[in-house]
Protein backbone atom coordinates (compact mmCIF):
# COMPACT_ATOMS: atom_id res chain seq x y z
CA UNK A 1 0.00 0.00 0.00
CA UNK A 2 1.75 3.12 -1.11
CA UNK A 3 -0.22 6.27 -1.60
CA UNK A 4 2.10 9.18 -2.40
CA UNK A 5 1.05 12.57 -1.14
CA UNK A 6 2.93 15.70 -2.05
CA UNK A 7 1.77 18.62 0.04
CA UNK A 8 2.65 22.17 -0.96
CA UNK A 9 6.16 21.21 -1.93
CA UNK A 10 8.35 24.04 -3.20
CA UNK A 11 11.99 23.95 -4.13
CA UNK A 12 14.41 26.80 -4.73
CA UNK A 13 17.97 26.64 -5.91
CA UNK A 14 19.39 29.90 -4.65
CA UNK A 15 17.17 32.62 -6.07
CA UNK A 16 15.72 30.32 -8.74
CA UNK A 17 12.46 28.59 -7.91
CA UNK A 18 12.26 25.21 -9.62
CA UNK A 19 8.97 24.14 -8.01
CA UNK A 20 6.15 26.42 -6.81
CA UNK A 21 3.93 24.80 -4.21
CA UNK A 22 3.12 21.45 -5.81
CA UNK A 23 0.13 19.50 -4.48
CA UNK A 24 -0.40 16.02 -5.82
CA UNK A 25 -1.82 12.77 -4.54
CA UNK A 26 -1.03 9.54 -6.32
CA UNK A 27 -3.26 6.62 -5.43
CA UNK A 28 -1.98 3.20 -4.45
CA UNK A 29 -0.91 1.23 -7.53
CA UNK A 30 -1.65 4.15 -9.79
CA UNK A 31 0.45 4.84 -12.87
CA UNK A 32 1.10 8.56 -12.86
CA UNK A 33 2.91 10.21 -15.75
CA UNK A 34 4.62 13.57 -15.38
CA UNK A 35 4.64 15.44 -18.64
CA UNK A 36 6.13 18.81 -19.36
CA UNK A 37 8.69 20.77 -21.29
CA UNK A 38 12.40 20.52 -20.58
CA UNK A 39 13.36 22.33 -17.41
CA UNK A 40 9.87 22.49 -15.90
CA UNK A 41 10.90 20.62 -12.75
CA UNK A 42 9.99 16.97 -13.40
CA UNK A 43 13.33 15.57 -12.30
CA UNK A 44 13.41 17.91 -9.32
CA UNK A 45 10.01 16.66 -8.15
CA UNK A 46 11.08 13.04 -8.60
CA UNK A 47 14.29 13.64 -6.66
CA UNK A 48 12.35 15.21 -3.82
CA UNK A 49 10.09 12.16 -3.63
CA UNK A 50 13.17 9.92 -3.71
CA UNK A 51 14.88 11.89 -0.97
CA UNK A 52 17.84 13.00 -3.06
CA UNK A 53 16.75 16.61 -2.70
CA UNK A 54 15.08 18.22 0.31
CA UNK A 55 12.07 20.42 -0.39
CA UNK A 56 12.48 24.05 0.62
CA UNK A 57 9.01 23.81 2.12
CA UNK A 58 6.23 21.23 2.07
CA UNK A 59 5.75 17.61 3.00
CA UNK A 60 6.10 14.26 1.26
CA UNK A 61 4.10 11.28 2.48
CA UNK A 62 4.49 7.71 1.23
CA UNK A 63 2.16 4.98 2.43
CA UNK A 64 0.78 7.14 5.21
CA UNK A 65 4.23 7.95 6.56
CA UNK A 66 5.83 11.35 6.41
CA UNK A 67 9.15 10.76 4.69
CA UNK A 68 10.67 14.12 3.86
CA UNK A 69 13.17 13.81 6.70
CA UNK A 70 14.05 10.16 5.93
CA UNK A 71 17.03 9.07 3.82
CA UNK A 72 16.22 7.50 0.42
CA UNK A 73 16.82 3.95 1.58
CA UNK A 74 14.06 4.16 4.19
CA UNK A 75 11.41 5.25 1.70
CA UNK A 76 10.73 1.92 -0.01
CA UNK A 77 11.38 3.26 -3.48
CA UNK A 78 13.38 2.34 -6.56
CA UNK A 79 14.36 4.79 -9.24
CA UNK A 80 15.46 4.89 -12.85
CA UNK A 81 17.76 7.87 -13.21
CA UNK A 82 17.55 10.17 -16.21
CA UNK A 83 21.30 9.70 -16.71
CA UNK A 84 21.01 5.95 -15.83
CA UNK A 85 23.73 5.94 -13.10
CA UNK A 86 24.60 2.35 -13.98
CA UNK A 87 27.66 1.45 -11.88
CA UNK A 88 30.73 1.20 -14.12
CA UNK A 89 32.62 -1.09 -11.76
CA UNK A 90 29.95 -3.78 -11.69
CA UNK A 91 28.76 -6.18 -14.35
CA UNK A 92 25.23 -5.90 -15.67
CA UNK A 93 24.25 -8.80 -13.41
CA UNK A 94 25.65 -7.14 -10.31
CA UNK A 95 24.13 -3.82 -11.30
CA UNK A 96 20.68 -5.34 -11.46
CA UNK A 97 21.37 -7.23 -8.25
CA UNK A 98 22.71 -4.17 -6.42
CA UNK A 99 19.63 -3.31 -4.39
CA UNK A 100 18.98 -6.95 -3.58
CA UNK A 101 22.54 -7.39 -2.31
CA UNK A 102 22.08 -4.37 -0.06
CA UNK A 103 19.12 -6.20 1.45
CA UNK A 104 21.28 -9.33 1.83
CA UNK A 105 18.80 -11.38 -0.17
CA UNK A 106 19.81 -15.01 -0.73
CA UNK A 107 21.65 -15.89 -3.91
CA UNK A 108 18.95 -18.09 -5.45
CA UNK A 109 16.37 -15.33 -5.20
CA UNK A 110 18.84 -12.75 -6.52
CA UNK A 111 19.59 -14.91 -9.55
CA UNK A 112 15.91 -15.52 -10.17
CA UNK A 113 14.99 -11.85 -10.04
CA UNK A 114 17.97 -10.70 -12.11
CA UNK A 115 17.26 -13.24 -14.81
CA UNK A 116 13.58 -12.42 -14.90
CA UNK A 117 14.00 -8.65 -15.19
CA UNK A 118 16.92 -8.96 -17.61
CA UNK A 119 14.76 -11.13 -19.84
CA UNK A 120 11.95 -8.63 -19.64
CA UNK A 121 14.28 -5.83 -20.76
CA UNK A 122 15.90 -8.05 -23.43
CA UNK A 123 19.38 -7.77 -21.93
CA UNK A 124 19.85 -11.35 -20.72
CA UNK A 125 22.77 -11.86 -23.12
CA UNK A 126 24.62 -8.87 -21.61
CA UNK A 127 24.70 -9.98 -17.97
CA UNK A 128 28.45 -10.54 -17.86
CA UNK A 129 29.40 -7.22 -19.44
CA UNK A 130 30.48 -4.00 -17.79
CA UNK A 131 28.55 -0.82 -18.45
CA UNK A 132 31.47 0.63 -20.43
CA UNK A 133 30.80 -2.11 -22.96
CA UNK A 134 27.14 -1.21 -23.49
CA UNK A 135 25.32 1.18 -25.79
CA UNK A 136 23.29 4.02 -24.31
CA UNK A 137 20.01 2.19 -24.87
CA UNK A 138 21.35 -1.01 -23.31
CA UNK A 139 22.58 0.91 -20.30
CA UNK A 140 19.19 2.49 -19.93
CA UNK A 141 17.52 -0.90 -19.91
CA UNK A 142 19.94 -2.06 -17.21
CA UNK A 143 18.81 0.94 -15.14
CA UNK A 144 15.17 -0.06 -15.62
CA UNK A 145 15.89 -3.71 -14.78
CA UNK A 146 17.74 -2.67 -11.62
CA UNK A 147 14.68 -0.77 -10.43
CA UNK A 148 12.19 -3.50 -11.38
CA UNK A 149 14.25 -6.20 -9.64
CA UNK A 150 13.64 -4.44 -6.32
CA UNK A 151 9.88 -5.09 -6.63
CA UNK A 152 9.38 -1.88 -4.67
CA UNK A 153 6.19 -0.26 -3.39
CA UNK A 154 7.01 2.85 -5.37
CA UNK A 155 8.96 3.10 -8.59
CA UNK A 156 10.14 6.42 -9.96
CA UNK A 157 11.18 6.46 -13.60
CA UNK A 158 12.83 9.46 -15.21
CA UNK A 159 12.47 9.10 -18.97
CA UNK A 160 13.34 5.40 -18.81
CA UNK A 161 12.88 4.69 -22.52
CA UNK A 162 14.17 7.95 -23.99
CA UNK A 163 17.24 6.42 -25.57
CA UNK A 164 15.63 3.48 -27.39
CA UNK A 165 14.70 3.26 -31.03
CA UNK A 166 11.02 3.62 -31.85
CA UNK A 167 10.39 -0.10 -32.27
CA UNK A 168 12.14 -1.23 -29.11
CA UNK A 169 10.51 1.58 -27.24
CA UNK A 170 7.10 0.38 -28.26
CA UNK A 171 7.94 -3.12 -27.13
CA UNK A 172 9.48 -2.03 -23.79
CA UNK A 173 6.52 0.20 -23.14
CA UNK A 174 4.17 -2.74 -23.41
CA UNK A 175 6.44 -4.89 -21.22
CA UNK A 176 6.62 -2.19 -18.56
CA UNK A 177 2.91 -1.68 -18.56
CA UNK A 178 2.46 -5.43 -18.18
CA UNK A 179 4.82 -5.96 -15.22
CA UNK A 180 3.79 -2.84 -13.39
CA UNK A 181 0.12 -3.70 -13.73
CA UNK A 182 0.79 -7.21 -12.38
CA UNK A 183 2.78 -5.97 -9.40
CA UNK A 184 1.33 -3.74 -6.72
CA UNK A 185 3.63 -0.87 -7.54
CA UNK A 186 2.75 2.79 -7.49
CA UNK A 187 4.53 4.36 -10.44
CA UNK A 188 5.62 7.88 -11.27
CA UNK A 189 6.90 8.06 -14.79
CA UNK A 190 8.50 11.08 -16.43
CA UNK A 191 8.42 11.37 -20.18
CA UNK A 192 8.57 13.88 -23.01
CA UNK A 193 6.76 11.50 -25.29
CA UNK A 194 3.04 12.25 -25.37
CA UNK A 195 2.10 9.00 -27.02
CA UNK A 196 3.97 7.13 -24.30
CA UNK A 197 2.21 9.23 -21.68
CA UNK A 198 -1.21 8.56 -23.17
CA UNK A 199 -0.66 4.85 -23.56
CA UNK A 200 0.77 4.20 -20.09
CA UNK A 201 -0.90 6.61 -17.74
CA UNK A 202 -3.80 6.13 -15.40
CA UNK A 203 -3.43 9.85 -14.91
CA UNK A 204 -1.20 12.49 -16.44
CA UNK A 205 0.17 15.47 -14.54
CA UNK A 206 1.06 18.24 -16.92
CA UNK A 207 3.74 20.52 -15.51
CA UNK A 208 4.72 23.99 -16.59
CA UNK A 209 7.31 26.28 -15.04
CA UNK A 210 7.45 24.43 -11.73
CA UNK A 211 3.68 24.04 -11.33
CA UNK A 212 1.25 21.23 -11.97
CA UNK A 213 -1.27 22.67 -14.39
CA UNK A 214 -3.57 19.67 -14.69
CA UNK A 215 -3.68 16.18 -13.28
CA UNK A 216 -6.32 14.00 -14.89
CA UNK A 217 -6.77 10.89 -16.99
CA UNK A 218 -5.29 11.00 -20.50
CA UNK A 219 -8.58 11.48 -22.34
CA UNK A 220 -9.60 14.30 -20.05
CA UNK A 221 -6.22 16.00 -20.43
CA UNK A 222 -6.49 15.70 -24.19
CA UNK A 223 -10.14 16.63 -24.57
CA UNK A 224 -10.59 19.14 -21.79
CA UNK A 225 -7.33 20.94 -21.14
CA UNK A 226 -7.59 22.85 -17.90
CA UNK A 227 -5.33 25.57 -19.25
CA UNK A 228 -4.25 26.96 -22.55
CA UNK A 229 -0.75 25.56 -21.91
CA UNK A 230 -2.05 21.99 -21.72
CA UNK A 231 -3.81 22.33 -25.06
CA UNK A 232 -0.77 23.86 -26.68
CA UNK A 233 1.61 21.29 -25.20
CA UNK A 234 -0.36 18.10 -25.71
CA UNK A 235 -1.37 16.83 -29.10
CA UNK A 236 0.69 16.67 -32.24
CA UNK A 237 0.03 19.07 -33.87
CA UNK A 238 -1.22 21.01 -30.85
CA UNK A 239 -4.52 22.79 -30.37
CA UNK A 240 -5.37 25.86 -32.49
CA UNK A 241 -6.19 29.11 -30.74
CA UNK A 242 -8.07 32.01 -32.34
CA UNK A 243 -9.11 35.42 -31.07
CA UNK A 244 -12.82 35.83 -30.38
CA UNK A 245 -14.88 39.02 -30.31
CA UNK A 246 -18.02 39.26 -28.16
CA UNK A 247 -21.20 39.10 -30.30
CA UNK A 248 -24.00 39.31 -27.77
CA UNK A 249 -24.76 37.21 -24.66
CA UNK A 250 -22.87 33.92 -24.91
CA UNK A 251 -22.08 34.50 -28.56
CA UNK A 252 -18.61 34.98 -29.97
CA UNK A 253 -17.42 35.96 -33.39
CA UNK A 254 -14.33 34.10 -34.61
CA UNK A 255 -12.90 34.92 -38.04
CA UNK A 256 -16.29 36.07 -39.24
CA UNK A 257 -18.15 33.04 -37.86
CA UNK A 258 -20.40 33.17 -34.81
CA UNK A 259 -20.22 30.41 -32.16
CA UNK A 260 -21.96 29.74 -28.87
CA UNK A 261 -19.53 30.29 -26.04
CA UNK A 262 -19.16 31.16 -22.38
CA UNK A 263 -20.77 34.15 -20.78
CA UNK A 264 -17.56 35.87 -19.84
CA UNK A 265 -16.00 39.24 -20.60
CA UNK A 266 -13.30 37.88 -22.85
CA UNK A 267 -12.54 34.50 -24.37
CA UNK A 268 -10.23 32.71 -26.75
CA UNK A 269 -11.50 30.06 -29.13
CA UNK A 270 -9.69 26.70 -29.34
CA UNK A 271 -10.07 23.62 -31.48
CA UNK A 272 -7.93 20.55 -32.09
CA UNK A 273 -6.66 20.19 -35.70
CA UNK A 274 -8.39 16.84 -36.16
CA UNK A 275 -11.78 18.21 -35.08
CA UNK A 276 -12.20 20.16 -38.31
CA UNK A 277 -13.76 19.20 -41.61
CA UNK A 278 -14.24 21.08 -44.86
CA UNK A 279 -17.72 22.55 -45.22
CA UNK A 280 -19.69 25.16 -47.13
CA UNK A 281 -19.45 27.58 -44.25
CA UNK A 282 -16.59 27.49 -41.83
CA UNK A 283 -13.43 29.23 -40.71
CA UNK A 284 -11.75 30.61 -43.82
CA UNK A 285 -8.25 29.12 -43.90
CA UNK A 286 -5.68 30.24 -46.40
CA UNK A 287 -3.48 27.22 -47.08
CA UNK A 288 0.28 27.69 -46.68
CA UNK A 289 1.82 24.23 -46.49
CA UNK A 290 0.35 20.82 -47.28
CA UNK A 291 1.96 17.69 -45.82
CA UNK A 292 0.50 14.33 -46.90
CA UNK A 293 1.28 11.99 -43.98
CA UNK A 294 -0.22 8.75 -45.27
CA UNK A 295 -3.37 8.27 -43.23
CA UNK A 296 -3.99 12.03 -43.06
CA UNK A 297 -3.08 15.29 -44.66
CA UNK A 298 -1.67 17.98 -42.42
CA UNK A 299 -2.57 21.45 -43.58
CA UNK A 300 -0.86 24.51 -42.18
CA UNK A 301 -2.88 27.61 -42.89
CA UNK A 302 -3.72 31.02 -41.58
CA UNK A 303 -7.11 32.06 -40.30
CA UNK A 304 -7.65 35.80 -40.00
CA UNK A 305 -3.90 36.23 -39.91
CA UNK A 306 -3.39 33.68 -37.13
CA UNK A 307 -1.56 30.35 -37.57
CA UNK A 308 -3.89 27.40 -37.83
CA UNK A 309 -3.46 23.70 -38.49
CA UNK A 310 -5.90 21.07 -39.63
CA UNK A 311 -5.61 17.31 -39.98
CA UNK A 312 -7.79 16.31 -42.91
CA UNK A 313 -8.58 13.10 -44.72
CA UNK A 314 -5.80 11.96 -46.99
CA UNK A 315 -7.90 12.19 -50.17
CA UNK A 316 -8.03 15.95 -49.67
CA UNK A 317 -4.99 17.59 -51.20
CA UNK A 318 -5.43 21.36 -51.32
CA UNK A 319 -2.74 23.50 -52.91
CA UNK A 320 -0.93 26.36 -51.19
CA UNK A 321 -2.89 29.57 -51.70
CA UNK A 322 -6.31 27.81 -51.72
CA UNK A 323 -8.89 29.00 -49.24
CA UNK A 324 -10.60 26.17 -47.34
CA UNK A 325 -13.67 26.58 -45.20
CA UNK A 326 -13.18 24.44 -42.11
CA UNK A 327 -16.07 23.73 -39.78
CA UNK A 328 -15.24 22.76 -36.19
CA UNK A 329 -17.06 19.86 -34.54
CA UNK A 330 -19.36 21.86 -32.23
CA UNK A 331 -18.89 19.85 -29.03
CA UNK A 332 -15.12 19.86 -29.43
CA UNK A 333 -14.78 23.63 -29.28
CA UNK A 334 -13.02 24.84 -26.10
CA UNK A 335 -12.74 28.32 -24.64
CA UNK A 336 -9.99 29.88 -22.57
CA UNK A 337 -9.78 33.05 -20.55
CA UNK A 338 -7.12 35.22 -22.23
CA UNK A 339 -6.21 36.81 -18.88
CA UNK A 340 -5.82 33.74 -16.64
CA UNK A 341 -5.20 31.26 -19.47
CA UNK A 342 -7.49 28.75 -17.78
CA UNK A 343 -10.42 26.96 -19.34
CA UNK A 344 -13.89 28.53 -19.47
CA UNK A 345 -16.96 26.36 -19.29
Amino acid at each position, binding site marked *: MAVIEIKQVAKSFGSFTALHSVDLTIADQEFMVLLGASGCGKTTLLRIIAGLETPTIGEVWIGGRRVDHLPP*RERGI*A*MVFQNYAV*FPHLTVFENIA*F*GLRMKKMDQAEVTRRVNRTAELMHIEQLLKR*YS*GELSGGQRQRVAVARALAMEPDVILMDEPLSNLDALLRLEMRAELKGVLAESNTTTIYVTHDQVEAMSLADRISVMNGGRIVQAANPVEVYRNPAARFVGSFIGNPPMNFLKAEPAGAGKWQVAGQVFDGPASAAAEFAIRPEDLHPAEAGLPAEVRVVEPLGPHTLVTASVAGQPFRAVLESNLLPAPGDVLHLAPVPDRIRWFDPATQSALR
Partner: protein
Amino acid sequence: MPRLLPYLLLLPATAFLCLFFLYPFVQVAHDSVMRNGVYTLENFSRMAGHWKFSTAFWNTMLLAAVVVPIQLAMALTMASIVTKLQRGRSSILYIFAIPLGISDLAAGLIWLSVFEQSGFLNSWLVGLGIVDQPILLLGYQNTWVIFIAIVLAEVWRATAIMMVILVAGMGLIPKEYGEAADVFGATRWQKFRRVTLPMLKPSLQTALILRVILAFEVFAVVVALGGTQLPVLMSETYHWQFAMQERGVAAAFAMVILGVSVAFTILILRLLHVPKGARV
Protein backbone atom coordinates in the same frame (compact mmCIF):
# COMPACT_ATOMS: atom_id res chain seq x y z
CA MET B 1 56.18 14.20 -39.28
CA PRO B 2 53.23 15.02 -36.97
CA ARG B 3 53.31 11.42 -35.78
CA LEU B 4 56.87 11.79 -34.61
CA LEU B 5 56.24 15.12 -32.98
CA PRO B 6 55.10 13.85 -29.57
CA TYR B 7 58.24 11.72 -29.29
CA LEU B 8 60.35 14.64 -30.33
CA LEU B 9 58.77 16.78 -27.65
CA LEU B 10 59.43 14.10 -25.04
CA LEU B 11 63.04 13.79 -26.07
CA PRO B 12 64.57 16.42 -23.74
CA ALA B 13 62.84 14.97 -20.69
CA THR B 14 63.83 11.46 -21.69
CA ALA B 15 67.43 12.50 -22.23
CA PHE B 16 67.45 14.20 -18.85
CA LEU B 17 66.08 11.08 -17.16
CA CYS B 18 68.61 8.85 -18.91
CA LEU B 19 71.50 11.05 -17.93
CA PHE B 20 70.65 11.72 -14.32
CA PHE B 21 68.57 8.73 -13.38
CA LEU B 22 69.17 5.75 -15.59
CA TYR B 23 72.95 6.19 -15.69
CA PRO B 24 73.44 6.37 -11.90
CA PHE B 25 71.00 3.52 -11.55
CA VAL B 26 72.99 1.32 -13.89
CA GLN B 27 76.08 2.40 -12.03
CA VAL B 28 74.63 1.28 -8.69
CA ALA B 29 73.40 -1.99 -10.16
CA HIS B 30 76.84 -2.53 -11.58
CA ASP B 31 78.53 -1.69 -8.27
CA SER B 32 76.40 -4.19 -6.43
CA VAL B 33 77.80 -7.11 -8.44
CA MET B 34 81.38 -5.85 -8.72
CA ARG B 35 84.09 -6.39 -6.13
CA ASN B 36 87.77 -5.74 -6.66
CA GLY B 37 87.25 -5.58 -10.38
CA VAL B 38 85.47 -8.94 -10.76
CA TYR B 39 81.81 -9.75 -11.11
CA THR B 40 80.63 -11.54 -8.02
CA LEU B 41 77.70 -11.91 -5.64
CA GLU B 42 79.93 -11.43 -2.65
CA ASN B 43 78.47 -7.99 -1.88
CA PHE B 44 75.11 -9.60 -1.45
CA SER B 45 76.42 -12.42 0.69
CA ARG B 46 78.31 -9.97 2.92
CA MET B 47 75.17 -7.92 3.23
CA ALA B 48 72.98 -10.90 4.04
CA GLY B 49 75.60 -12.40 6.31
CA HIS B 50 75.80 -9.33 8.52
CA TRP B 51 73.86 -9.75 11.76
CA LYS B 52 72.04 -6.43 11.32
CA PHE B 53 70.69 -7.21 7.86
CA SER B 54 67.67 -9.26 8.79
CA THR B 55 66.84 -6.90 11.68
CA ALA B 56 67.02 -3.95 9.31
CA PHE B 57 64.97 -5.77 6.68
CA TRP B 58 62.24 -6.80 9.09
CA ASN B 59 62.19 -3.44 10.85
CA THR B 60 61.60 -1.78 7.49
CA MET B 61 58.84 -4.23 6.60
CA LEU B 62 57.22 -3.94 10.01
CA LEU B 63 57.28 -0.15 9.88
CA ALA B 64 55.70 -0.17 6.43
CA ALA B 65 53.15 -2.77 7.53
CA VAL B 66 52.09 -0.63 10.49
CA VAL B 67 52.40 2.86 9.02
CA VAL B 68 50.80 2.38 5.60
CA PRO B 69 47.52 0.78 6.78
CA ILE B 70 47.12 3.43 9.48
CA GLN B 71 47.75 6.14 6.92
CA LEU B 72 45.39 4.53 4.43
CA ALA B 73 42.57 4.32 6.97
CA MET B 74 43.14 7.87 8.14
CA ALA B 75 43.51 9.28 4.64
CA LEU B 76 40.30 7.56 3.52
CA THR B 77 38.38 8.83 6.51
CA MET B 78 39.70 12.35 6.16
CA ALA B 79 39.15 12.39 2.40
CA SER B 80 35.53 11.22 2.84
CA ILE B 81 34.91 13.99 5.32
CA VAL B 82 36.62 16.67 3.26
CA THR B 83 34.77 15.59 0.10
CA LYS B 84 31.40 16.04 1.83
CA LEU B 85 32.21 19.57 2.99
CA GLN B 86 30.16 22.26 1.31
CA ARG B 87 32.43 25.09 2.33
CA GLY B 88 35.98 25.65 3.51
CA ARG B 89 37.22 22.63 1.64
CA SER B 90 40.35 24.22 0.23
CA SER B 91 41.34 25.86 3.54
CA ILE B 92 41.13 22.51 5.26
CA LEU B 93 43.15 20.89 2.50
CA TYR B 94 45.83 23.54 2.97
CA ILE B 95 45.95 22.94 6.71
CA PHE B 96 46.21 19.19 6.26
CA ALA B 97 48.93 19.72 3.70
CA ILE B 98 51.22 21.70 6.03
CA PRO B 99 53.22 18.64 7.18
CA LEU B 100 53.92 17.95 3.51
CA GLY B 101 56.08 21.03 3.39
CA ILE B 102 58.32 19.78 6.18
CA SER B 103 61.30 17.62 5.34
CA ASP B 104 61.49 14.19 6.92
CA LEU B 105 64.52 15.12 9.00
CA ALA B 106 62.73 18.17 10.39
CA ALA B 107 59.73 15.98 11.15
CA GLY B 108 61.99 13.56 12.98
CA LEU B 109 63.48 16.41 15.01
CA ILE B 110 60.06 17.81 15.86
CA TRP B 111 58.99 14.46 17.26
CA LEU B 112 62.34 14.07 18.99
CA SER B 113 61.59 17.27 20.89
CA VAL B 114 58.40 15.58 22.05
CA PHE B 115 59.93 12.28 23.11
CA GLU B 116 63.47 13.10 24.32
CA GLN B 117 64.35 13.13 28.00
CA SER B 118 63.92 16.89 28.27
CA GLY B 119 61.00 16.88 25.80
CA PHE B 120 57.35 17.92 26.01
CA LEU B 121 56.03 14.50 26.86
CA ASN B 122 58.33 14.15 29.85
CA SER B 123 57.55 17.61 31.14
CA TRP B 124 53.82 16.87 30.91
CA LEU B 125 54.24 13.53 32.62
CA VAL B 126 56.20 15.19 35.45
CA GLY B 127 53.81 18.15 35.53
CA LEU B 128 50.82 15.82 35.90
CA GLY B 129 52.64 13.91 38.60
CA ILE B 130 52.54 10.63 36.71
CA VAL B 131 56.30 10.20 37.01
CA ASP B 132 58.70 11.70 39.54
CA GLN B 133 61.45 12.59 37.13
CA PRO B 134 61.92 12.58 33.35
CA ILE B 135 62.38 9.09 31.95
CA LEU B 136 64.55 7.97 29.07
CA LEU B 137 61.88 7.06 26.51
CA LEU B 138 63.99 6.54 23.42
CA GLY B 139 66.59 4.28 25.02
CA TYR B 140 67.81 0.91 23.81
CA GLN B 141 65.83 -0.87 26.59
CA ASN B 142 62.53 0.01 24.99
CA THR B 143 62.90 0.03 21.23
CA TRP B 144 59.11 -0.31 21.00
CA VAL B 145 58.80 3.33 22.19
CA ILE B 146 61.20 4.33 19.42
CA PHE B 147 59.06 2.32 17.03
CA ILE B 148 55.87 4.02 18.16
CA ALA B 149 57.53 7.43 17.95
CA ILE B 150 58.63 6.70 14.38
CA VAL B 151 55.14 5.51 13.46
CA LEU B 152 53.62 8.69 14.90
CA ALA B 153 56.10 10.91 13.11
CA GLU B 154 55.56 9.11 9.80
CA VAL B 155 51.79 9.19 10.12
CA TRP B 156 51.88 12.86 11.03
CA ARG B 157 54.22 13.69 8.20
CA ALA B 158 53.01 11.72 5.23
CA THR B 159 49.28 11.00 5.61
CA ALA B 160 48.34 14.24 3.90
CA ILE B 161 49.89 13.22 0.59
CA MET B 162 47.61 10.19 0.45
CA MET B 163 44.65 12.24 1.52
CA VAL B 164 45.22 14.84 -1.17
CA ILE B 165 45.38 12.13 -3.83
CA LEU B 166 42.24 10.46 -2.47
CA VAL B 167 40.31 13.74 -2.27
CA ALA B 168 41.14 14.36 -5.91
CA GLY B 169 40.06 10.79 -6.74
CA MET B 170 36.78 11.09 -4.85
CA GLY B 171 36.10 14.36 -6.64
CA LEU B 172 36.27 12.45 -9.92
CA ILE B 173 33.50 10.03 -8.96
CA PRO B 174 30.24 11.45 -10.36
CA LYS B 175 27.78 11.99 -7.53
CA GLU B 176 25.01 10.16 -9.36
CA TYR B 177 26.57 6.82 -8.34
CA GLY B 178 26.38 7.72 -4.67
CA GLU B 179 22.77 8.74 -5.23
CA ALA B 180 21.96 5.47 -6.96
CA ALA B 181 23.49 3.61 -4.02
CA ASP B 182 21.35 5.66 -1.61
CA VAL B 183 18.17 4.96 -3.52
CA PHE B 184 18.92 1.25 -3.78
CA GLY B 185 19.19 0.90 -0.05
CA ALA B 186 22.90 1.15 0.70
CA THR B 187 23.83 2.24 4.20
CA ARG B 188 26.71 4.68 4.54
CA TRP B 189 29.16 1.88 5.09
CA GLN B 190 27.78 -0.18 2.17
CA LYS B 191 28.00 2.84 -0.07
CA PHE B 192 31.60 3.39 0.90
CA ARG B 193 32.50 -0.29 0.62
CA ARG B 194 30.56 -1.17 -2.54
CA VAL B 195 30.66 2.05 -4.56
CA THR B 196 33.22 4.62 -3.39
CA LEU B 197 36.08 2.25 -2.68
CA PRO B 198 35.92 0.26 -5.95
CA MET B 199 35.56 3.44 -7.98
CA LEU B 200 38.50 4.93 -6.14
CA LYS B 201 40.84 2.13 -7.21
CA PRO B 202 42.95 4.19 -9.65
CA SER B 203 43.65 6.84 -7.01
CA LEU B 204 44.21 4.18 -4.35
CA GLN B 205 46.80 2.61 -6.62
CA THR B 206 48.69 5.87 -6.98
CA ALA B 207 48.49 6.76 -3.30
CA LEU B 208 49.52 3.30 -2.10
CA ILE B 209 52.42 2.89 -4.50
CA LEU B 210 53.75 6.30 -3.60
CA ARG B 211 53.39 5.69 0.12
CA VAL B 212 54.71 2.12 0.15
CA ILE B 213 57.83 3.07 -1.80
CA LEU B 214 58.44 6.01 0.53
CA ALA B 215 57.90 3.71 3.51
CA PHE B 216 60.64 1.37 2.30
CA GLU B 217 62.94 4.35 2.01
CA VAL B 218 62.26 5.59 5.54
CA PHE B 219 65.49 7.06 6.88
CA ALA B 220 65.79 10.54 8.42
CA VAL B 221 62.89 10.12 10.85
CA VAL B 222 64.36 6.80 12.02
CA VAL B 223 67.81 8.23 12.51
CA ALA B 224 66.53 11.34 14.27
CA LEU B 225 64.44 9.39 16.74
CA GLY B 226 66.35 6.17 17.15
CA GLY B 227 69.93 6.83 16.11
CA THR B 228 71.26 3.33 15.51
CA GLN B 229 68.82 1.67 17.92
CA LEU B 230 66.45 0.70 15.18
CA PRO B 231 68.29 -0.18 11.99
CA VAL B 232 66.33 -0.02 8.74
CA LEU B 233 67.44 -0.77 5.16
CA MET B 234 68.15 2.85 4.29
CA SER B 235 70.16 3.58 7.43
CA GLU B 236 72.22 0.44 6.76
CA THR B 237 72.84 1.55 3.19
CA TYR B 238 74.08 4.86 4.54
CA HIS B 239 76.18 3.11 7.15
CA TRP B 240 77.89 0.83 4.66
CA GLN B 241 78.47 3.59 2.16
CA PHE B 242 79.91 6.22 4.48
CA ALA B 243 80.98 4.61 7.74
CA MET B 244 82.29 1.33 6.31
CA GLN B 245 83.31 2.76 2.92
CA GLU B 246 81.90 -0.42 1.32
CA ARG B 247 80.35 0.89 -1.84
CA GLY B 248 79.50 -2.54 -3.18
CA VAL B 249 77.56 -3.66 -0.10
CA ALA B 250 75.74 -0.33 0.04
CA ALA B 251 74.80 -0.85 -3.61
CA ALA B 252 73.53 -4.32 -2.73
CA PHE B 253 71.28 -2.77 -0.06
CA ALA B 254 70.02 -0.27 -2.60
CA MET B 255 69.17 -3.15 -4.94
CA VAL B 256 67.23 -4.89 -2.17
CA ILE B 257 65.19 -1.73 -1.54
CA LEU B 258 64.56 -1.43 -5.26
CA GLY B 259 63.55 -5.09 -5.51
CA VAL B 260 61.10 -4.82 -2.63
CA SER B 261 59.62 -1.59 -4.05
CA VAL B 262 59.14 -3.10 -7.49
CA ALA B 263 57.59 -6.26 -6.03
CA PHE B 264 55.09 -4.29 -3.97
CA THR B 265 54.28 -1.94 -6.85
CA ILE B 266 53.41 -4.93 -9.01
CA LEU B 267 51.39 -6.45 -6.18
CA ILE B 268 49.40 -3.24 -5.68
CA LEU B 269 48.79 -2.89 -9.41
CA ARG B 270 47.51 -6.47 -9.51
CA LEU B 271 45.34 -6.22 -6.43
CA LEU B 272 43.72 -2.96 -7.49
CA HIS B 273 43.42 -3.81 -11.17
CA VAL B 274 40.36 -2.33 -12.86
CA PRO B 275 39.14 -4.51 -15.74
CA LYS B 276 38.80 -2.84 -19.10
CA GLY B 277 35.24 -1.71 -19.63
CA ALA B 278 34.77 -1.24 -15.89
CA ARG B 279 36.39 2.16 -15.86
CA VAL B 280 34.45 5.29 -15.06
